[in-house]
């Protein structure tokens, strides 16, 4: 049984300029112990979609359903949500410099997490906090537990965040661009720590990123989002070898070491659409190199790409297009390597 099953999630905001429809019918599932990657450019609704699952988005109108381990997250009481947050679903945010409280020691913040949900004595919680800092490879954890966040580097702070989010062995960890604010070398370390922790504890992970390179090694399944919608959803292998959607192709082409010339990036021309305006039936129409009449007339359903039932794409291009893009394994090796540079 799936750990998390999100179905037709819609999130909108009433603003002075009108209704912003940030998430428009997103569905995905996460299996226990697995990693789901969510990819998309900035503004595609990744954060809003995932944070509204734990109902942390202020002023959002949310519809759809999100079943987590038998509980409907979108209709649970505030009390139930508080028991879920932290204990069953851990969260890590993009900017490690601002997501820890500057006035409390890291130990205090981890202990607070533990004691908010379990009645353990302070000393036991402290011992557990030291073990957690060890687990995320903070050197000399016993001494550093009483340091303040500003005494740590960005990468270390993100590891502290991981330690805190994992303190109660949550079944699901939502990591919202955990490495975006970090140096490339530090990125790889933090990802490695997350993978190791996952291997240790068997937690499922939703890993959000705008960089396909980041999830090339770690995701079991990938959801490609654009303008609040799912464009393509498949196992990692299909996304990298047999992608179907032109948007996925664009994201891949913008990876370094891709599209023929090695170090030249080919960003997707144009910008994501405003979420205030009415969109084309397919939101990618204005930027799509393959666009044809039907794309402007009819909404492409998120449908299986022949012959694979688990590979879904929302595009009118012929299904066997995916097979034309079978890439040699050497190309794939290149993508993986970007995650470790």
């Amino acid at each position, binding site marked *: 049984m799936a750990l998390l099953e999100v179905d037709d999630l819609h999130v909108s905001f009433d603003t002075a300029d009108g209704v912003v429809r940030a998430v428009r019918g997103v569905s995905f599932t996460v299996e226990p112990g697995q990693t789901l990657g969510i990819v998309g450019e900035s503004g595609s609704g990744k954060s809003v979609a995932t*944070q509204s699952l*734990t109902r*942390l988005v202020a002023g959002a109108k949310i519809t759809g359903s999100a079943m987590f381990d038998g509980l409907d997250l979108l209709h649970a009481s505030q009390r139930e*949500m*508080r*028991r*879920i*947050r*932290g*204990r069953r679903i*851990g*969260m890590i*945010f993009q*900017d490690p410099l*601002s*997501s*820890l*409280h*500057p*006035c*409390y020691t890291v130990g205090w913040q981890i202990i*607070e*997490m533990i004691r*908010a*949900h379990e009645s353990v004595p302070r000393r036991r919680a402290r011992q557990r906090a030291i073990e957690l800092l060890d687990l995320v490879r903070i050197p000399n954890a016993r001494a550093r537990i009483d340091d*303040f966040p*500003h005494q740590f580097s960005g990468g270390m702070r993100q590891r502290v*965040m991981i330690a*805190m*989010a994992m303190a109660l062995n949550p079944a699901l960890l939502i990591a919202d661009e955990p490495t975006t604010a970090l140096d490339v070398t530090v990125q790889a370390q933090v990802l490695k720590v997350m993978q190791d922790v996952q291997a240790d504890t068997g937690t499922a992970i939703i890993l959000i990123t705008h960089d396909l390179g980041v999830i090339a090694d770690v995701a079991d399944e990938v959801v490609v989002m654009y303008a609040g919608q799912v464009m393509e959803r498949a196992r990692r292998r299909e996304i990298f070898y047999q992608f179907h959607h032109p948007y996925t192709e664009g994201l891949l082409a913008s990876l370094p070491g891709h599209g023929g010339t090695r170090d030249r990036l080919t960003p997707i021309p144009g910008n994501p659409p405003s979420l205030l305006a009415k969109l084309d039936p397919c939101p990618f129409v204005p930027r799509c190199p393959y666009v044809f009449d039907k794309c402007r007339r009819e909404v492409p359903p998120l449908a299986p790409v022949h012959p694979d039932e688990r590979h879904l794409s929302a595009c009118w291009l012929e299904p066997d297009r995916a097979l034309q893009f079978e890439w040699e394994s050497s190309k794939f090796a290149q993508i993986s390597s970007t995650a470790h540079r």
Partner: protein
Amino acid sequence: MFRFLILRILQGILVLWLITVAVFALFFVVPSNVARTLAGRQATPRTIHLINHRLGLDQPILKQYWDFISKAFHGDLGYDYYHQIPVTHIMAQALPITLSLAIGAAVIWMALGVFNGVVSAIHPRSVADRSMTVFALFFYSMPSFFLGLMLLFFLYYKLTLAGYKWFPAGGYAPLSQGVGQWFLHMVLPWLTLALVLAATYTRLTRSSMLDVLGEDYIKTARSKGLNERRVTYRHALRSALTPVVTQFGIDLGQLIGGVVITETVFSLPGLGKTAIDAITQQDLPVIIGIVLFASACVVVANILVDLLYAFLDPRVRLS
């Protein structure tokens, strides 16, 4: 940290010294008629000369200043010109009154300001927020002597006329006469002093809280499953207090002005009123004593606030 303290204390001493110089200089720029007042209308020049001699006023300024400073180092601030009471004694009599007023008012204004500010910030644009805003604007624009007179008019005069003699017209009742009496005598002066400042602190806390509530670490706190009360007070208010405390340090100086006015309006014989009386009588030793004491309080309070600031925000390094 230690260096910082030493430096600040030396700075404070320098400030205090400059203040004694300034007060002395001012006093001797204005022609003195202390002796004339003391001796009465009919006094002969000889009497006046004698009085001046007895008070030491016929000495050269520098000599007088030197006498004052060397005695002050031993905690002797001299005697008042009119009754020959030790200045330290006069101040010791007045101090409890001023302390009652200042501490009580500070507690009210901080508690009221911070609490109102937090309530406004967690429900911005709600009815509660808007009424706090009206409250703040109303008192913010009001001079404290006017507020004092209004309170006297409505809560003393009108109430007493209506047969409810709850509050006295003024004066002080020491704690030895019972907490109740002391409290009733202090309520109106407290409100006079506190409401104006509480209004400022409501606005300050509100905006500071609104800033902090948008921070990522508040989202982190919520994602940990903490309840809203803990998020508001342990996480948000903790950071939001830093600018409030800084402002508190700045306002302690202003508080002195407020104390003087309030004590005068409510005829409380505290340090402020004593100082005003001394100034009208040109009673130099008393003036200097009180000014020096008030300045020392501000200096010490500012050092304490700096320490508190470093304690509140671990990123601050004292240097």
